[in-house]
């Protein structure tokens, strides 16, 4: 492109001051930022790979332990109902896309530009979390549909499935925040990806494959402190037993607490980075 060709009297571009009186509200910022991030996230083929991974988990779990009579008995005769939460939580690793999107913004210098603009740090984090949580819900939806096609029959029907997706959304928000915090601290694609994968064994420190009562004592203790336990059991109760208010409240409280702690960690990390840590 020749700028000589396009060079023209620049005064034409000058008019009265256009500075907006106020920056947009926090909600408007989140909406604008999310619209940008979502386009990038959903164009990324990693989304498909994460989904395939989750579907593979589902098939492999069923193929390896789905024939064990004891386990099938926990699931009222249908092991897919029992194992669907495991596949959904495995799919939630897709929420780690938030951190990778942030690393891309750090590398392109766009985060630095955003940090010089009147944008709330929490709006930046929230937009990444929302996008990734929506990704997790999309993946969970496909996993559930796949599970139903294979024979799962959720006890609470469509309403229960929507509750499961709601829990997946909140869990996805928390995982996305965790990934953002790691990305801000490490600013490295490989470290952020690795941190996302580390999350998988942590999820398994819970009654993901067998009921809580059958875990070894040390694993039971670990599971007690692992929010994944309560989310798994909440989802499982919806899919196998029907409506259980106690289980649902525990699942909701655990996923919200996880989301809150990770969200605070992410906002703190990004605040620290913007004032002094990026030098």
């Amino acid at each position, binding site marked *: 492109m020749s700028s000589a060709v396009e060079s023209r009297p620049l005064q034409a*571009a*000058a008019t009265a001051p*256009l*500075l907006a009186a106020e*920056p947009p509200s926090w909600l408007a910022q989140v909406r*604008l930022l999310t619209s940008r991030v979502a386009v990038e996230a959903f164009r990324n083929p990693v989304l498909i790979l994460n989904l395939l991974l989750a579907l593979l988990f589902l098939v492999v779990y069923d193929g390896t332990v789905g024939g064990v009579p004891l386990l099938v008995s926990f699931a009222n005769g249908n092991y897919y109902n029992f194992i669907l939460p495991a596949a959904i939580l495995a799919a939630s690793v897709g929420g780690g896309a938030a951190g990778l999107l942030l690393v891309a913004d750090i590398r392109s*210098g766009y985060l*630095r530009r955003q940090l010089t*603009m009147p944008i709330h740090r929490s709006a930046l984090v929230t937009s990444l979390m929302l996008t990734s949580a929506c990704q997790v819900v999309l993946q969970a939806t496909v996993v559930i549909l796949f599970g139903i096609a294979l024979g799962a029959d959720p006890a609470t029907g469509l309403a229960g499935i929507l509750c499961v997706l709601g829990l997946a959304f909140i869990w996805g928000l928390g995982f996305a925040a965790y990934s953002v915090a790691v990305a801000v601290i490490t600013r490295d694609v490989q470290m952020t990806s690795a941190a996302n994968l580390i999350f998988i064994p942590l999820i398994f420190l819970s009654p993901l494959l067998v009921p809580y009562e059958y875990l070894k004592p040390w694993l039971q203790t670990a599971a007690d402190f692992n929010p994944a336990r309560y989310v798994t059991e909440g989802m499982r109760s919806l899919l196998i037993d029907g409506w259980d208010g106690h289980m649902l409240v525990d699942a909701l409280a655990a996923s919200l607490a996880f989301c809150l702690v990770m969200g605070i960690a992410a906002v703190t990390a990004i605040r620290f980075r913007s004032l002094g840590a990026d030098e």
Partner: protein
Amino acid sequence: MATIELEEISKIYSRGVSSIAALSGLSLSVKAGEALALLGANGAGKSTAVRILSTLSKPNSGSARIAGFDAVSEAPQVRARIGVALQETGIYPAGRVRQVLRHQGRLFGLDRPAAARRGDEIIELAGLAKVANQRVQRLSGGTRRRLDLGLALLHRPPVLLLDEPTSSLDPFSRHDFWRELGRLRDEGTCILFASQSLEETEHLADRVVLMAEGTIWRDDISVAAVRDIWAGNVVGS
């Protein structure tokens, strides 16, 4: 009242047990309608000063104010009033030029039609019409730089903070931007820029400050004098 005020700013970078003083008691002020050039050798502290004013970095001591707002405690107010273009461009690569400009306009509070209109003005201004629908990742370094400078001007900030603003531009674009920046300065915009280019400084600056070792070595020095000093390698060492 000065639009930009730095008072006794010190900044120390720590790396393990070692630390480097990037700024040591830097004080300066720039008025509305004035363009100040910070010149100096690499490591003199020019970019650090720009980063502190841009709210990207926090001083260890001293105060930095823009339009009366403190760059640390009132950073949001400062950010609404500054246009920033740093040494490295900061644009998301997957976006298209027009889309990137409109998106930034919206983030500064312009409504949709105003953001579209202003985006188109910047496309004209920066000579980006032919690439307006291209993705940023496909642009050449110089074109990307023009877009970056356009983004800094988009919301008509009363203060422009630029670091090596036109270093990677071709001569035509460079002159276009110098002319535009000069016009903005004449309309009252306060400009502070760090530079290594005496040509750029000659075209843009009303006042030249020569920095060394994190502080002002010579204030209100002529470009000719800087050229003489640099030729004698006085500061570079």
